[in-house]
């Protein structure tokens, strides 16, 4: 009995590994292909795309071309600053608004919720001209703040939408207990509710981060200056410029992938700690 159950578990586990491994290969293969080929000579890229670089085909010419042209570490810093700044505002302001909307009954509650949800439905890029006018009038063009404000506005609707779903299921007893203990509404929010919705916050963080990090449009319009150029915009210049120079383009893409990967690996620990902490509670 015990034996067969263990065996069944083993089979299930192997099956799970097989399926997950398949998806992992599908997910990673294209990325690996770029990384491998970015290290090879042009002839080798075409002759044997699947072969890893060896002594004869190894070539860093692509990286040399790309790095000679742009200030990648600097672009990386710009991207990081803008992304983290926007992320902080989206999470903080989004959670506060979501709490207000899910916790309190007040006139126009439903209306405000719907109003905030409108933003999920229209791509903010359609408002580009208006946004640009606003940034010109406030002197924010070619500053990080122009981007941070736009990304905050863009991220808020979704974060409020998701966070209110999660806040709605936070135990009412807990909050009632807090109020009886004389906690202010602010303390209830920051000390009781926020820690409980950490998994949701982590999720929102990842979803907010990706489109911001990868956005090409607003950096191009609002902050194209060399001082504020983001990594994605910097990499895009190369994609256009070296469209038929595969060494350079593969290197440029590898340089665009690696930082995101590192960033995600750093965040991923926080993320999962957040998710599991919420689950165990």
């Amino acid at each position, binding site marked *: 009995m015990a034996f067969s159950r263990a065996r069944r578990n083993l089979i299930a586990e192997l099956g799970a590994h097989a399926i997950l491994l398949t998806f992992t290969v599908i997910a990673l293969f294209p990325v690996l292909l770029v990384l491998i080929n970015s290290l090879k000579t042009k*002839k080798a890229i*075409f002759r044997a795309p699947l072969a890893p670089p060896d002594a004869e085909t190894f070539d860093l010419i692509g990286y040399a071309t790309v790095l000679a*042209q742009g200030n990648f570490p600097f672009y990386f810093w710009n991207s990081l600053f803008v992304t983290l700044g926007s992320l902080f505002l989206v999470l903080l302001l989004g959670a506060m608004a979501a709490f207000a909307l899910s916790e309190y009954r007040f006139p126009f509650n439903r209306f405000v919720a719907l109003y905030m949800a409108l933003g999920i439905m229209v791509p903010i890029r359609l408002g*580009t*001209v208006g946004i*640009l*006018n606003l*940034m*010109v*009038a406030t*002197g924010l*063009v*070619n500053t990080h703040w122009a981007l941070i404000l736009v990304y905050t506005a863009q991220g808020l609707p979704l974060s409020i939408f998701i966070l209110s779903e999660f806040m709605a299921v936070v135990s009412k007893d807990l909050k009632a207990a807090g109020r009886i203990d004389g906690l202010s509404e602010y303390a209830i929010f920051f000390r009781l509710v926020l820690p409980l919705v950490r998994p949701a916050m982590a999720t929102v963080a990842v979803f907010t981060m990706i489109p911001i990090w990868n956005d*090409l449009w607003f950096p*191009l*319009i609002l902050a*194209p*200056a*060399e*001082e504020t150029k983001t990594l994605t915009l910097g990499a*895009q*210049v190369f*994609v*256009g*410029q070296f*469209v*038929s*120079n*595969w060494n350079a383009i593969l290197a440029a893409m590898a340089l665009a992938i690696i930082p995101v990967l590192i960033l995600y690996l750093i965040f991923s620990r926080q993320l999962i700690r957040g998710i599991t902490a919420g689950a165990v509670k």
Partner: protein
Amino acid sequence: MKTALRGALLAATVLAACGPAVAEDVTLTIESWRNDDLSIWQETIIPAFEAKHPGIKLVFAPVAPTQYNAALNAKLEGGTAGDLITCRPFDGSLDLYAKGYLAKLNDLPALENFSEVARSAWTTDDGSATFCVPMAAVIHGFIYNKDAFAEVGVEVPSTQAEFMDVLARLKDEGSYVPMAMGTLDQWEAATMAYQNIGPMYWKGEEGRKALIAGTAKMTDPEWVKPLEVIAGWKPYLGDGFEAQAYADSQNLFTLGRAAIFPAGSWEISGFKRDADFELGAFPPPLPAAGDKCYISDHNDIAIGLNAASPNADAARTFLEWMGTKEFAELYSNSLPGFFSLSSHEITLDDPLANEFVSWRKSCDSTIRSAAQILSRGTPNLWSQMWGVAANVVNGTQSPADAAAEMQAGLAAWYEPQKN
């Protein structure tokens, strides 16, 4: 008040965009879609200008061609566009001028150095205003791999029949893809195929002007025939050409795997850099021996002045310099295949570029048929041409249907073509 503020901010951002410039220096930003040319501007053209004009700094700020229109429009509306704007030919820039974004340049002496034909691409219909300084024209034709031709033992074709024969023999021999062209990006089919060989059939300017006057239709034989010709290319394109992007075609050719590349002269510099075999070029084949020869010699690129530029004087200095022989020579020789539109006598160093230019002697030049006037309405004829030309090469639409579709589109809004 508001304009003053905006002007000040604009100046501030333009300065900020260019880092540590000396306070008195004026910095001019050039908006462009030619990101391929970035290093040539940075290393050759800009230093040459700055050496002659201390106090003016130039920044060449290109974006990807697909984003150029969108980004430029948004920046023009928001008032943050650069001082100098790279102009697409004909209707594209005319629209910007009509909206008041490009300054009128009639009083610019440099324009004297350009012929009326050269200026026509950036002049209003009534000829009253010119708004960009012409830079270059591009010529269509075919670039081929000389080694491959020698190896297979084929000669450069001069008529359509010979051309098809060369393709067939290349295919039979089998070591080379006869022709490197794909249809994924669509514009190659319209530009490198239809507009490349088409002028031979619609007789260049004569046919183009008849279409504008409404005395000819896209469904007439001289417009349908070239579609039939390019439909015949299909068997000679590479495997899976439907998913072959422009860059794929370039690589296919420069890696020595294809024999012929239906080209624009702008390919010359890239091909010379990447190919390690000998390159040759021939003009589009004549429909029949003894026919008159027509080539597409298209005004392609110019630079205009942003009407809202706070540095108009400095920008005019630059535009003035663009009219000099010095600029014409620098530009044409650092970007062989972009032929200066100025009237100066220029010596071209590149043999391939000289080959292209030599066709002007034996053939009549014309511009792309959809560029002027015919692309002002909806549906846009030039955009439509991309789509149907790709369909025709793919074999998913018959030449007659394709022609009928373009004619219907034109008839929907263009008065002389209605009925």
